[in-house]
């Protein structure tokens, strides 16, 4: 795989009047990476993408592509290609004309264009569809045409603005693998915008988690899932149970948190916050539903939680138990379905157990909206 062209954002600020859309973003994207910006809608991720593609001038700071400052360079002069959220296929052009639009601009002959279009159509597994109009294709096919059109321009960086959001679930999952494969094949840098953590986790080399214009954490998917830097990252990526409280004791890389409702619990401190949590600080502790297990009744200690079951549900691969939790939030426990029998506990108190390595403590902060 070729090295590819990296993208750097240096102290990037973007303001619309008084509104700050992006606040001091510093990101280094390695060449040839599949990099995702993950965040809820309105967090400024699309704004960053538009700044990289050149449709928006940053208020402050720089965008560097391959080490070159892009200040004052228009979108048509940047080595980027953008795949729009609504795809923006040209409705009056046939598929092959759409795909080779970038060649038409450069004055390529029709024969040349047709040949290249056929190659690309082969690559996106839509051979012989070149003579259709975009309106005659299905959603997934249009998606692939948009990708082919962007790739035809031979960009160094491909920018994707939630391109899968309009597709149904099955297709979305299929396109994830396909996108990842295309990226590996062409070897260029992909920057992907999404609010779907599943997409970000499955496809990306690295992910930046964004909240209200601020980048909370940049790391690979595993790190973000297992070792979130902020309360927001912990609650936004994947499901998580939160326990609020104050730090009671610091023990190296672990802390004892006296929680509001479950007594003293022990937890690992997330890597990004090690040494930053002191006794008396407000803190939050997160335990994934799958990290909780049923413990024998009457067990107690700093890694046991007791709660009353409110309801249960069978999801196929897991069996979910919901108990009353802290501050209106319930605690969810997911037990893997290994063929064992589940007896109902609804209305009964149960004891839950976890490994302190699977719990993570961060300073108290804003949680992601449900």
């Amino acid at each position, binding site marked *: 795989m070729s090295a590819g062209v990296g993208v750097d954002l240096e102290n990037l600020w973007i303001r619309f009047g008084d509104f700050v859309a992006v606040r001091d973003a510093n990101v280094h994207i390695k060449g040839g990476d599949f990099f995702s910006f993950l965040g809820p809608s309105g967090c400024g991720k699309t704004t960053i993408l538009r700044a990289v593609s050149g449709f928006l001038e940053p208020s402050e700071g720089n965008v560097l592509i391959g080490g070159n400052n892009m200040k004052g360079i228009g979108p*048509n002069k940047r080595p980027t290609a953008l795949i729009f959220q*609504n795809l*923006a296929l040209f409705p009056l052009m046939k598929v092959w004309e759409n795909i080779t639009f970038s060649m038409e*601009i450069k004055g390529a002959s029709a024969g040349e264009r047709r040949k290249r279009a056929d190659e690309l159509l082969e690559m996106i597994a839509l051979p012989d569809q070149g*003579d259709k109009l975009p309106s005659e294709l299905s959603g997934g096919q249009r998606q692939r045409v948009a990708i082919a059109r962007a790739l035809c321009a031979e960009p160094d960086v491909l920018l994707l603005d939630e391109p899968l959001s309009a597709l149904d679930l099955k297709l979305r999952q299929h396109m994830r693998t396909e996108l990842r494969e295309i990226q590996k094949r062409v070897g260029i840098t992909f920057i992907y915008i999404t609010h779907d953590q599943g997409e970000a986790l499955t496809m990306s080399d690295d992910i930046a988690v964004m909240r209200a214009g601020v980048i909370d954490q940049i790391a690979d998917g595993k790190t973000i899932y297992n070792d979130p830097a902020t309360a927001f990252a912990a609650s936004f990526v994947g499901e998580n149970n939160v326990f609020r409280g104050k730090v009671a004791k610091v023990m190296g890389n672990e802390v004892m948190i006296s929680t509001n409702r479950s007594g003293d619990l022990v937890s690992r401190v997330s890597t990004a916050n090690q040494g930053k949590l002191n006794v008396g600080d407000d803190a939050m502790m997160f335990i994934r539903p799958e990290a909780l297990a049923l413990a024998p009744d009457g067990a107690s200690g700093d890694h046991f939680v007791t709660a009353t079951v409110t309801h249960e549900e069978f999801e196929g691969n897991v069996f979910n138990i919901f108990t009353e939790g802290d501050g209106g939030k319930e605690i969810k426990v997911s037990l893997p379905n290994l063929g064992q029998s589940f007896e109902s506990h609804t209305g009964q108190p149960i004891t839950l157990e976890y490994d302190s390595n699977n719990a993570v403590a961060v300073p108290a902060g804003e949680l992601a909206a449900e």
Partner: protein
Amino acid sequence: MMSERIIRYSIWIYLGIFFAYLLGPLVIMSITAFNSPTFPRATPWECLTFEWFSALFQDQRILNGIKNSIIVGLGTVILSVSMGLAGALMLTQIWPKLRATYYTIIIAPILIPGVVLGISTLVFWDRINRMLGLGADSFLSNGLFLTIIGQSTFIASYCLLVLVARLQRYDLALTEAALDLGASHAQAFRKILLPFMRPAIASAAVLAFLASFENYNTTTFTFGEYPTLTIELAQKVRYGITPAISALAFIIVALTVFFALINESKIKRKEQVMEARKNATVAELSKGVKVPGFLSGNPAAIVLVLFCIGSVAVVGTATAYSPDQCIARVKEQKQIEAEERIKELRRKRDADNLKKFKGVFDPDEISPEEEEAPKQDNNSGFGGVFDPNALSGDDDAQDGSDASGGDESGNNSGFGGVFDPNNLNSD
């Protein structure tokens, strides 16, 4: 049951009245174009004639008017559509807070009377012309230029309305996508936006041409030495109209119907092609989709073909047909009728006279009466004031009196020859 039938009948009656109101005048006018009397009338029908068409095409003023109208129309189309498009694009780009104000300003010319626009165009460009120190024959005071400029002031607003409607459905992301793929702004405009706008541009152009072609009140101030068709027609009507104007109207109606049919059949055709594409397989798409024949399932196309055949037949008949015989016969008949009427009148008068003067006077004595004679010359209420001969007669009389006065005293002054230089000499 009963009331339902009444409703159904009244709807048909209403439709009949409605269409008679809309199309009746056109039908009557078209009929007059083929009738032989020199004043356009549909009844009584005398002779089928095509002479009004040849009269029309021999009328240099009408032909010149048509030519000027077409030149002005094309100029107006180009100017109005480009101004309208620019205005429409501006509307999408402008700062949102200013949008309503901008819209009001740019639409205002539609609300201003055409007469005002005509006068102001004339005055404005005249001032410019003078400021630049140009003469009365400069380009800026040229009738064609002024008419195009004057008409475009408000026709551009019509175009803008048509174009804005289409532009509102345009996805700005398409332009961005083109830019992102390396197109310059000009290329994005030409290759993406302009093709998208093409149907609206075509409608705007047709609208602009028709609005320009029929415009009178603005043009009447600006045409200068280039009268358009409407101006020529208006001037002609003042001297009385001939069926040649009906012939012109008929041609315009026929052309309108012709283009409407073409448009209709084209739209239908497009629908059929889209339908065929939808059902076509991939292989068919690349080789060319099979579409049904031009006439199948396309009533507008059928009517169009019939219409063309009809026109060819009419033109063919017109070249072969000569109404001379019929006209001669009608003339003869009219003459006979007229003579008959005269005879009738004379007989009546004789009978009357006989009744009135029976035994009192000899009827022959009354006609040579001297004092009654001048009244027969003139039946105007103004008693010969407007008689052109009255003026010259007076002149003659004066000349005569001057000549005779010289003989009498040589002086008609109130001062009785005091200032006559001849008097001094004699003293």
